[in-house]
Structures are given as C-alpha cells and as structure tokens.
C-alpha cells in the first residue's frame, strides 16, 4: 500500500537513483507487454511493406489506403504502448517559475524607452514627422497595385444583362426557342443568342422560360404584354445569393431555389412566397415574332441577382 502511494507522489526527475520506483515501467508484466508490442510492430511492418507492394503493382486505391493506414496505425499503437507501459511510470514534477521580472527591471525598461525615445522625438520632430508621412503615403500608394489592379471597377456592370430588344432566346445547345416547343408545364433555360456558352451568358443572362396556362394568372401592372401565349421568362439568378433557380414545380406554380429554398410564385410576378429571398425574380419582357420565335422586348428593368449597396 505504502509503496504504491510513494510511487504516486510526484518527484523531480533529475538526480533520481536508478532503482527508484518512479523509473520502473508502468506495466505489471513488462515481458508480456513487450511481446505484444513486438507482434504489433511486426504486423505494422508487414502492412507498410504491403503498401509498397500495392503501389508497385498499381493496386486499387483502397488497398493503398488500407495497407498504409493499417500499418501506420499498428506502428503507432506499438509506439504509444511502449511509451505508456515500458517507459518510466513517474509521475514527475517540475517547478513552474513566474516569467514576471522584478519591479526594478520593469522600471528600468520603461525608463529606457521614455528617456531615450523622448529625447529622439523631442529633438527631431521634423525628421520624425517626415518619416512617418513618407511611410504613411507609401502605405496608401501601395494599396493601388495591391488592390485596385486586381479587377475592374463595378460601374454599371451589375445593372445590365445582354438581353436587348429583339434578342432571340436560345437553349443550351444554341437552338432558337419557337412558340410550339413548350407544352404547358414545361421549362427551359434560355440565353441571349450567341452567349449560351459564354461565362457571362451562363452567369448573368441565364433566364428560365416557362409556359403556363392562362388560368389563374395574375398580370402585374405594366407587364400586360410581357408574357405572350403563356410564355413567361424570369431571371434564373436567385435574388438571395445568386444560385440558379432551376427547380420548377408545375402544379404548385413555384420556382424554388435549390440552395436555400426561396420559393417564387410564377403566376404572380415571381414574388417570393417563402424563404430568405426578399425580392421577386426580375421578369424579362417577351414577344413572339412573325416566324414564331420567342424574343426579348428589352433588357430586364432592374438588376438581376442578389442585393448590393448601389442597387437602390
């Protein structure tokens, strides 16, 4: 009993006699533990060698991971067990010294800073001012190459898309959409002709074209002619965070954003019905030309996509 207690009392490591109980292994039967660790190491060694073999013969990825992971895990287990059971059991104690200096030393430092620094500043005000000014101006000037050259200024970019009066609506393969193509309850993503494969066409101009029956449709004021023959076009860029609003539920007449589940009512000007989006999806005014092609009357009358400071 008392021996156990003694060995549980922390002692300082340095200067311990070699037969001190603190320096004995923690395990009751070190020989046994040694054998177990030896087996673990041997298995780990085999697996790590197997990793090399698997790599050499280009075995499937999982064999590489299994051999490497299994091998390293076994080696790790053995090494930890070695440290835990076969090395000095301790516990040992170490003094913790305060890092704080004496009050005199602190005062000496403060005095040095105040006296020497003060003398420099007092006597060389002009020099100090000029140097500070120079470095400050350099700091400001350095912002230009570091920041300003990274990209163009926003200017009006966010306020316009590439839809113009008379632009043909084409699908992802570049085919112009004709009035007979869509049945009621159909949806297609359209782009301004020629931009269907461009980054800007994909990111900014993307528009969903849906065809609905004219029943239960609420026409927004000023948009009486925007949806000919049940064809309605809304910006596909969500007004919340800009994800493509590609989820159309034709019976509920909802466009849903797959990212954060904002729901827009197709039959009522795409006004948000639920979810975090605050603004309706902008509507693209359409007309059907003499050959039956779907074309834009004009650009969107408001910026598409998520909100930003200058949006107004």
């Amino acid at each position, binding site marked *: 009993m008392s021996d156990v207690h003694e060995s549980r009392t*922390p002692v300082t490591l340095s200067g311990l006699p070699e037969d001190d109980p603190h320096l004995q292994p923690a395990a009751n039967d070190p020989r046994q533990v040694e054998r177990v660790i030896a087996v673990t190491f041997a298995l780990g060694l085999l697996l790590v060698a197997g990793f090399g073999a698997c790599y050499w013969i280009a075995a499937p990825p999982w064999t590489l991971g299994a051999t490497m992971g299994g091998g390293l895990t076994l080696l790790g287990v053995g090494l930890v067990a070695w440290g835990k059971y076969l090395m000095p059991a301790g516990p040992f104690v170490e003094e913790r010294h305060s890092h704080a200096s004496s009050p005199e030393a602190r005062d000496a430092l403060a005095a040095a800073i105040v006296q020497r620094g003060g003398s420099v500043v007092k006597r060389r005000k002009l020099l100090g001012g000029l140097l500070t000014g120079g470095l400050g101006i350099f700091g400001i000037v350095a912002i230009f190459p570091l920041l300003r050259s990274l990209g163009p200024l*926003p200017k009006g970019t966010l306020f316009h898309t590439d839809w113009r009066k008379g632009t043909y609506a084409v699908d992802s393969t570049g085919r112009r959409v004709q009035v007979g193509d869509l049945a009621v309850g159909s949806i297609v993503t359209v782009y301004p002709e020629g931009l269907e494969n461009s980054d800007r066409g994909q990111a900014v101009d993307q528009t969903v074209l849906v065809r609905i029956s004219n029943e239960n449709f609420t026409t927004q004021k000023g948009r009486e002619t925007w949806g000919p023959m049940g064809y309605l076009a809304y910006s596909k860029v969500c007004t919340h965070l800009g994800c493509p609003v590609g989820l159309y539920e034709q019976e509920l007449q909802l466009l849903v954003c797959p990212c*954060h589940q904002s729901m827009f009512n197709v039959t009522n000007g795409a006004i948000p019905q639920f979810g975090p989006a605050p603004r309706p999806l902008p509507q693209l005014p359409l007309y059907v030309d003499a050959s039956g092609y779907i074309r834009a009357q004009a650009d969107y009358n408001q910026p598409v996509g998520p909100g930003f400071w200058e949006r*107004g």
Partner: protein
Amino acid sequence: MSITVPNTKRAKQAAKGPYGHLGTVLNELDDRLGVAEGGRSFMDKIFPDHWSFMLGEIALYSFVVIMVTGVFLTLYYIPSQALVTYHGSYLPLDGMRVTEAFASTVNLSFAVRAGLLMRQMHHWSCDIFIGSMVVHMARVFFTGAFRKPRELNWSIGLTLLTLAIVNGFLGYSLPDDLVSGTGIRIAYSIVLSIPLVGTYLGFFAFGGNFPGTSVIPRFFIMHVLIVPGIMLGLVGAHMFLLYRQKHTQFPGEGRTEKNVVGSPMFPVFMAKTTGFLLLVTGVTALLGAFAQINPIWQFGPYEASRISYAVQPDWYMAFLDGMLRIFPAWSFHSFGYTIPFEVTIPAVIFPGLLFGVAYAWPTLERLFTKDNEMHNLLDRPSNRPKRTAAGAAVLAMLSTLFLASSTDVIANFFHISLTTVLWSMRVLVLVSPFVAYPITYKICKEMQGIKGGGKRKTPNVVTRTEEGEYLASSAPVYVDDLPSELEPTEVPRYITSPPKEPDVAEPGARIVER
C-alpha cells in the same frame, strides 16, 4: 602544463569521453550554439498526463497530414479556368468541355497512382483538423485554460481556427466542380452584400463580375501559400507559448499552481506523441481508403446555370449556410441604397459577432469576475456554472444551425414538409440557447461539492430494515484510502458549495452489506 596528443586507439577513445560519437556531435554543436543546458531542460520538460490535452495534438498532426498530402496534390493540380475537352479514363465525362482545374482534379484522382487516396486523405484530414480544433477549443474554454497568462494563445488559436475554415473553403472550391462552384457563387454574393464597399471588394477579388477569370488561380495561391504560410507561423507561435508558459493541469495529488506533474519529454512523451502522429495519419489513411469523399466526377464541372439540389458546404461552413437558410427575408432599401440584411446579418455580422465575442471572452470574463490572478490549475466545468452554461448555449445554437443547413435532407429523410422543418429550425435556433443555459447551469450546481466531480465514487451501503424497507447511506471510507500524506487539494474560492467531507471509519472497520 602540457597538452598530450592522443596517439593510441584507447587514448583517442578516452578523449572522446564516455558518450562516443553522440558526445562528439553534441560537443561540436554546443561549441557553436550552446545547446547543452537548454537541451537538457528540454529533455526533462514535464507534460501533464490527461487525455483531453491530446485533443490539440489531433489538430497538430492533422495539419501535418494536410501539408504532406497537399504538397502531393499541387504536383498534379492545374489552377486554371481555361476550357479543355476532357478525354480521360472516367467515361461519363468524356468529350465534355471543362476547366483545366476540373480536368486535372479528375485526372489526379483516376490516372495518378495513389492520387485518389491522397486527395481523400487531404479532404478527410481537413474535416478532422477543424473538428479537433473545435473540440480542443471547447476543452480550453470549459476548463478555463484561456485565463491569465494564456489569453494571447487563446487568440492565436482562434485565428488559426478562422484561417483553417477560410482555407478549407478555398480548397473545397479549387476542383471547380458543380457543388463547389455553387459555393463560390454564394461567397461572391455574400461579399457583394457588404454595405458601401461590397461590389468593389467582389470585383477586385474575382477580377470582375462573377464568375470572373481569375478566381481559381487566386484561390489556389491563397490556399497553398498565403494562408498556410500564416498558419504555419501561428502554429509555431502557439507551440512556443505553450512551451514557454508550460501546460496547465487539473488540480489533484501534488499538483499546485507552481508546478507541473506528468511525464518527461524524453522518452515518455516523445514516444507517445510520435505514436499518436502515426495513429492520426493511420486513421486518416483508413478513412481515405474506405470512405469516399467529394466524388467530383459524379458532380460534373461547374457552369453557372447548372445546379444540384441538396448541396451543402463542408461541415465547418454549415452553420453559416444554416443561418442563411432560416434568416427571414429582410432587406433595407432607402435613400437610393440597398443593404441586403437577409445576407449581411447572417453571413457577415453574425459570424463577426460570434468570433468577436470569442476573442473578447478572456477579457470579458476578467472584467466580470474581477479575477486578475495567474491560473495554471484548470477549472472543473461544474465549478464554473455560468461559463459552462454560456458555452453550452452557444454550442446548442451552433448545432441547431448546423442541422438547419440540411433542412431539405431532414425533410426528405423523415418525409415531413420542408416548410415545417424550416419553421421548426427558426424556432429552435432562438429557443435552444435559452433551454441549454439553465439546464447546464442546474447540472453544474448539482455536481458541485461532490468529491470526484460527480463521478460518485464513494460506495453506498444498502440496508434492509426489519419492516423490509431499503435504505441507502454513503459508506464510510477507510483511513488508508485517504491520501493523507499528500497535500490537500486547494479549493478554489469561487466554488460555492464546499466539498462534502466523507465520514471516516475507524481503522480496521469493515463495510457490512446485507
């Protein structure tokens, strides 16, 4: 005085000293650098033994795994948004127009030997890295290890967590697949939502309007050089402060504010910690072998008009995504300007506030408790019920937000309405902290004053009365069982209930159980 030049083998051996080649090397080193004294005290440095002190090591060693696997990946990954036609060994994408970034990621997964394993280990170790950082941080918080003199290391740790989250997002974006592209789009919109400067920041960062031309190369250099460089420096500083200030320890036998009790650096701790490095690498490799992560070939390349449902960010970004999902559609339009509160509050202000409070916590706690002492002994969480309850409240809210990032998956899994799930999450996020706080507080108070911190180690004696009633009373403890020869554990003054003194039985008495 004469200098004798050794000329026989034995004399040379004797001149080398009793430690042979090692001695020679150390002599040479010490002549130049003076390593002997410092080295000796380093060997003797004591590390306290407690399993929770190893949690930070999981993070440290995951970081090592991330760096090694990451170097492998940079050898094959091409950070370019140039379009190429994919002709590789993964047939379903054959002939598709993809960016070089995407094509090279698919190629390094399929055509480079061990490439897929390295990619999966890189991603898994990132998940583990940030997870273990959070767990480590929780340990430090709940045990009060951030108190004076360790406030600076708390701040460094928080900065590391922030940078790790940022770098995780950057790395997740690099393959330019459908899911990560959606993530970049959302990040761009969040930058755009910052009042006054948002559009400028967005245009500068992306080299123009989304998707821009330079986001992949810029994310790449941030991901592989700038952020990891800063992190490496901060990890060094974190370790140095740990070394200089010495580790905290739990109160216990022989442990005081002025000492450290545990195992020495060499050989015990070194063996254990090296073994642990191997274990962390091994477990990560096993995960990389058997659990597939981020199969970008199934997602396909990103195009701004394509989208998949059920897309979530990696888990450490999920709380932000959850907040964005459940936040109401509030937007401010006035004076010709717009502040998109529906984005700014959940994605900019909320995380800013969260991390701000975390940075300020050590200072705030000092202000409220007026405790300016040095603390090297840790708290039992139950002895600091208010802090513990506050931490539990924040964790409860963050967990709810984490769940809220997969509302659709939950709705689909339990087959309930999406709207119901969204509304439940809105309510839960507001309610959960206010439920977690009092419950945790009450539990802490109950646990106080129990010896062994609520483990209830003292045996109970159950007796049966003549009438057949069973009565339980705590058993007397043998005198021998009390570590009377050790210094008694100091009771911190903030503990409100004093520890219950066990009834001490006479020597030789025996517990009678009937």
